[in-house]
């Protein structure tokens, strides 16, 4: 494998009690590349995303970043490596406002650690309107618990897009989004790619995947069954692999 790969997974396995969620999984993410991570329900996609984010530790195998072998033991490790994630379950705190959720753990503060509330509020509003144009959110002070399903997802997207650095992991980011917001997000992924940010897109919508991805990794029952460049495949072949394996 070329040394220039941003991130590589090497023979990763992961068990939960008796269940082997991932088995001997290896794939890589290159620079300025959008990888589509596809597969049936329960194939292990979210487990893979959580593992790259440092939430789960692999049972065996390892990661490498820029060719350097490494292991993420917590979320901060993966953040240090430039990884940003939109989780399938959104990972928002219902009892906090939108602004506080966006800046959770990465607050803008003065030298004493006190919050710059006005600044954060302004950024939150702007990023919500730009990253995914979401309607109905009239104030970034609203509690996340009071938002609709799609609005919550938009907040999670806004947060990841704002803090993105090198790799963006998107776990079914459009599942609750409307047509318009979905288009906006896919455009955003391409724009980030142009800026040099790689992405991993997990989705069940193969049209969306085909629209933006450069390469596809298809998983089934915890292992990789197919890894192909866009140029070498077609949407019908992808469908076949996802549905039939």
């Amino acid at each position, binding site marked *: 494998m070329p040394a220039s790969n941003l991130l590589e997974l090497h023979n990763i396995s992961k068990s939960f009690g008796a269940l082997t969620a991932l088995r001997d999984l290896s794939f890589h993410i290159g620079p300025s590349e959008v990888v589509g991570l596809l597969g049936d329900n329960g194939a292990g996609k979210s487990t893979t995303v*959580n593992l790259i*984010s440092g*939430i789960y530790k692999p049972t065996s195998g390892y990661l490498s970043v820029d060719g350097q072998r490494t292991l993420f033991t*917590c*979320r*901060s490790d993966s*953040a240090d490596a430039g990884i940003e*994630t939109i*989780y399938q379950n*959104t*990972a*928002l*705190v*219902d*009892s*906090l406002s939108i602004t*506080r959720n966006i*800046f*959770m*753990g*990465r*607050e803008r*503060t003065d030298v*004493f*650690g*006190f*919050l710059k*509330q006005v600044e954060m509020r302004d950024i939150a509003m702007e990023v919500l309107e730009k990253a995914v144009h979401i*309607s*109905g*959110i*009239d104030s970034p002070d609203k509690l996340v618990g009071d938002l609709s399903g799609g609005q919550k997802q938009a907040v999670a997207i806004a*947060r990841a897009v704002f803090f993105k650095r090198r790799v963006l992991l998107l776990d079914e980011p459009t599942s609750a989004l409307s047509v318009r917001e979905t288009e906006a997000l896919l455009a955003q992924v391409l724009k980030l790619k142009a800026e040099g940010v790689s992405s991993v897109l997990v989705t069940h919508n193969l049209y969306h995947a085909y629209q933006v991805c450069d390469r596809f990794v298809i998983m089934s029952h915890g292992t990789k069954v197919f890894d192909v460049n866009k140029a070498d495949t077609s949407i019908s072949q992808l469908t076949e692999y996802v549905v039939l394996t």
Partner: protein
Amino acid sequence: MTDSAVPKSRTKKQSLLKQIMTMPAGAILLVFAALQIVCIAGALAYPDDFRYLSPQNLTILMKAIPVLGCLALGAGILMIAGEFDLSIGSVYTLTAVLMASLVDGGMSAFIAAPLGILLGVMIGLLNGTITLRFGLPSFIVTLGGLLFWRGAVLLYNGAVQVRFDPEPAFSSLFAGTLLGINAAFIWIMLFVAGFYLLLHRHKFGNHVFATGGNPAAATAIGINTDRVKLVAFAIAGGMAAVAGIIATARVGSVQPGQGAGLELQAIAACVIGGLSLRGGRGSIIGIFLGVMLIHTITDVLLLLRAPGFYLDMFIATLIVVAAAFNHLIERRGAA
């Protein structure tokens, strides 16, 4: 797109009262304000029979509030972070005994008091470490702590009351008066202000709310929830020690059996002030108003000469009634 103005029209303007009601701690503020208005009106109308506004009574209220106030502030922050500390009552006694006996042995109170606070912080850290290291419910760990440190008081000094006789400067710092205001009350106001800034204006507070509100999400986004909880445990322990110092400076001695049940009172004050036992919700102002409410109710009942044998029954009833009012107001605010 033709609808840029439409979302605006979906939100009605609300009256100031409704806005206050929906603020955190807004409802309890209204309940407290209403109680104060009734009490002050009553005191002005019947100055001889209901001496609510007499200087002695105000002084006692100011002396009474800080002890429970300190305990509740510490316990409250920890509860917002999603954990309990039932050992604060025992820590309160243990640190007070330590401080008093050190002073008895000739040490300056200005050194002994920080040592007491240090002990409280260390116990808090120990509670936190055991809880987090073994993944145990903090309820069990600190219930163990309650019994353990109560035993430690006896181990350290036996079941004897300890006299506390510090240098006058220390006494006046914690039990004196400044411009007619009790020193302990000034301390608690400083703590309220400080913790308000820490919890509502500082990034640490944001982490506390996130940790208590949804620990999985907080972890997933990179907050070190264990560290946040550990600091909160330390604060709870430290504030229990501060409460012990203030109480001891006032009374001038420590009883080995004191502090029992204070943990429940502190938790009650927090819950009355709108804090959720499941973590993630609460406010410093609410906690402080909860403490004030409990003490005002007790005070008013005593001033009204409620039958003393059953005083607790009345206090219990009034606290539940106040909480019910609080909730009704909140609900009206949300509707």
